[in-house]
């Protein structure tokens, strides 16, 4: 067991650091261009140097490096330390690109991968529907092939960023006569096409991070399909795997503790500072136990990934664990806040440590994470069935 990096990796770290020292932040004339442009130029250099888009072939705009999670981790650490722009965030690079690389046609990769990883085009995801949440495969949005175009009708929901997206990858029912999992296709769609209506979906905290999207005879070319007709369900599984990984991130849970300690230092409870109260102290340390266990487990995951071994149970639990920590932290937060919880929060999520009434927001957001990307009950099914080998759920099984 060794939490440090080998000499070879430390040399690589030094290499990354000197690249960053030379290229970020921008110097001289580079400072004159817009921030977006600065980031874009920097990313181009970083790709050329092999630090970004490492899994992407050069012919699609990537740097085509050998898979090495430790190098990837070093890059993330050093880029974060230098506050340099890293991989473009979002479900385009995170979910669509891996799917296209695995299942897409050559022309699709050429057209979409490069602009997506450079952040020039932005994607949204058309999966959930009002009647199809946990039971995603029951989705009803139809696409019919009319001439050389798919004609899409129906409705999607929980579409994050639909109002800003250039394109959508969408699951549609194209084979209505097939069993439900076999009747779905994975299509690509230009969001500027006529017939698309995006309505923001206001959340309980007042923000609107999600949308409903309505489709009224929306057309997309016949060959904007990934995989074959009726293979959409399988194609989408590639993608979902990536989403689960994205959500179960340990770094945010770590920040929760620091925020709570600050809150407990500032607030009072029964005449003492909250942090001096035995109940608060016990609960904070109890929370820390969960947070550290989660954090150190991410080292295990990283190591398993580096060895290309399956991490098993701990991987499947990642999301539920993060959700549970969020709930626990929110409870402590609201208990510390007292009167401030009578005040409506600023609905925007903060990036750094959570402070003041932002805890009221966090108290609600902690519920959002248990719902996005598979509810906690769905996670428990997965852990129980795939992880512990318990018998499959009969209702869910019957419907497959």
């Amino acid at each position, binding site marked *: 067991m060794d939490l440090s990096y080998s000499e070879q990796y430390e040399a690589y770290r030094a290499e990354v650091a000197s690249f960053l020292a030379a290229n970020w932040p921008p110097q001289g004339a580079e400072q004159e261009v817009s921030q977006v442009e600065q980031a874009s130029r920097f990313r181009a250099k970083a790709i050329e140097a092999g630090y970004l888009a490492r899994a992407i072939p050069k012919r699609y705009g990537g740097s085509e490096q050998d898979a090495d999670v430790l190098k990837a981790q070093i890059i993330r650490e050093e880029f974060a330390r230098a506050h340099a722009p890293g991989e473009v965030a979002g479900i385009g690079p995170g979910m669509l690109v891996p799917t296209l690389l695995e299942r897409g046609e050559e022309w699709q990769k050429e057209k979409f991968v490069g602009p997506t990883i450079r952040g020039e085009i932005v994607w949204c995801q058309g999966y*959930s529907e009002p*009647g*199809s*949440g*946990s*039971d995603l495969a*029951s989705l009803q949005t139809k696409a019919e092939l009319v001439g050389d175009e798919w004609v899409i009708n129906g409705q999607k*929901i*929980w579409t994050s960023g639909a109002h800003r997206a250039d394109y959508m990858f969408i699951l549609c029912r194209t084979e209505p006569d097939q069993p439900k999992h076999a009747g779905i296709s994975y299509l690509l769609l230009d969001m500027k096409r006529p017939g698309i209506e995006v309505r923001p*979906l*206001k*959340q*309980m905290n*007042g923000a609107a991070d999600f949308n409903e999207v309505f489709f009224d005879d929306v057309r997309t070319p016949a060959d904007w399909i990934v995989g074959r007709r009726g293979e959409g369900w399988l194609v989408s599984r590639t993608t979902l795997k990536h989403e689960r990984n994205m959500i179960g991130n340990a770094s945010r849970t770590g920040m929760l503790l620091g925020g709570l300690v600050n809150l407990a230092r*500032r*607030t*009072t*409870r*029964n005449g003492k500072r*909250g942090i001096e109260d035995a*109940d608060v102290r016990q609960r904070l340390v109890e929370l820390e136990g969960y947070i550290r266990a989660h954090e150190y487990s991410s080292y295990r995951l990283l190591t398993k990934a580096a060895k290309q071994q399956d991490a098993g149970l701990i991987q499947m639990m990642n999301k539920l664990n993060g959700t549970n920590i969020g*709930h626990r932290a929110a409870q402590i937060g*609201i*208990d*510390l*806040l*007292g*009167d*401030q*919880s*009578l*005040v*409506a*929060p600023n609905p925007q999520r903060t990036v750094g440590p959570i402070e003041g009434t932002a805890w*009221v927001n966090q108290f*609600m957001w902690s*519920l*959002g994470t*248990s*719902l*996005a990307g598979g*509810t*906690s*009950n769905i996670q*428990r099914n997965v852990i129980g069935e795939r992880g512990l080998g318990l018998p499959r*759920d009969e*209702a*869910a099984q*019957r*419907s497959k």
Partner: protein
Amino acid sequence: MNFDTSEEQDLLQDTLRQFAAQECPPNRVRALFDGDEALDLDIWQKLIELGMGGIAVPDEYGGAGLELLDLALAAEVLGETAVPCPFLGHSLAGLAIQLCGSELQRKTWLPKLASGEVLGSVAFAESASEDGAGGWQPEDWTLAAGDRLTGTKAFVPVGTRSDLIVVGTAGAGLALVEVGAPGLELTDAGGIDRTRHLANLSLRNTPCEPLAKSGPPVGRLRDAALVLLAADAFGGASKCVSMSVEYAKTREQFGVTIGHFQALKHQLANMATEVEPSRALYWYAAHAYDHIQEESERAAALAKSHITSQYMQVARDSVEAHGGIGFTWECDVQIYFKRAMFDRAFFGAPAVHRERIAQMSGW
């Protein structure tokens, strides 16, 4: 021995439920929640016509002369239906004058409060404290008493539309101020629960009328407030359970209603088991207030801390039981979630009252 509501009390609750169903159904609640008005006069006027202005006001002052229990039973239904109205502050203003006012003060104000001619509210907390204790307790008030008041108070329910405000003053006293008096300013502070807007009150050398009695009767007022909040919380928590159960009976996934799934069924059973026994806890607290005074302070604090904690948890569970839709503004659960946040923090968070109980127990 009869630990149950009477036929008259059942009728009171049924009447209020019918009123809510007809005059303020969920779509109306949502519209008011989304609007900017602190008060819907039409609804309040109709509630006044139903006698909600003076349930506990003695008959000789134009009220129904009932007990805190009856007031709490009304609070339960208002909690359950989430009808936006100034019931809480108005009722507490009436109780304050009844408990602490001179005969003249009672004669002057109680009939007007009972008839709805005057809308009352209360102003106790002096600023947004972070611990949930600050200023809810009579012993914490610092605003100097006298014929004129200068200072600020926070969290005045439906304050911007009130006519008469009972202000807590130093030494566990109370004083009346009339809206429109010189130096008095009320600003809508919004607040998390948009069915019960909160206002900030600022007083600058504002003339006031101190109530005759201070000390122990003011403690009684606090106990009454705790019982009403507990009753509201019980109504809201029950509603969260029933909304979640109804959703489970209608929402389908995998070809069946989700109530078929045993994991959810047990979560709902746990929610119900958490909430239902608390009905007796708030009943007892109200009954103790009315008839077993030596247990009243403790029972009120216990009911408030216990039930408002449960309400908050059950509201969270309801969001989860509703899946994604439970997290939206459109879903009624969010309204109850925020009412739970109000009931929990208003007049002191659970940890504060639990510590008070530990002290009362001599621990």
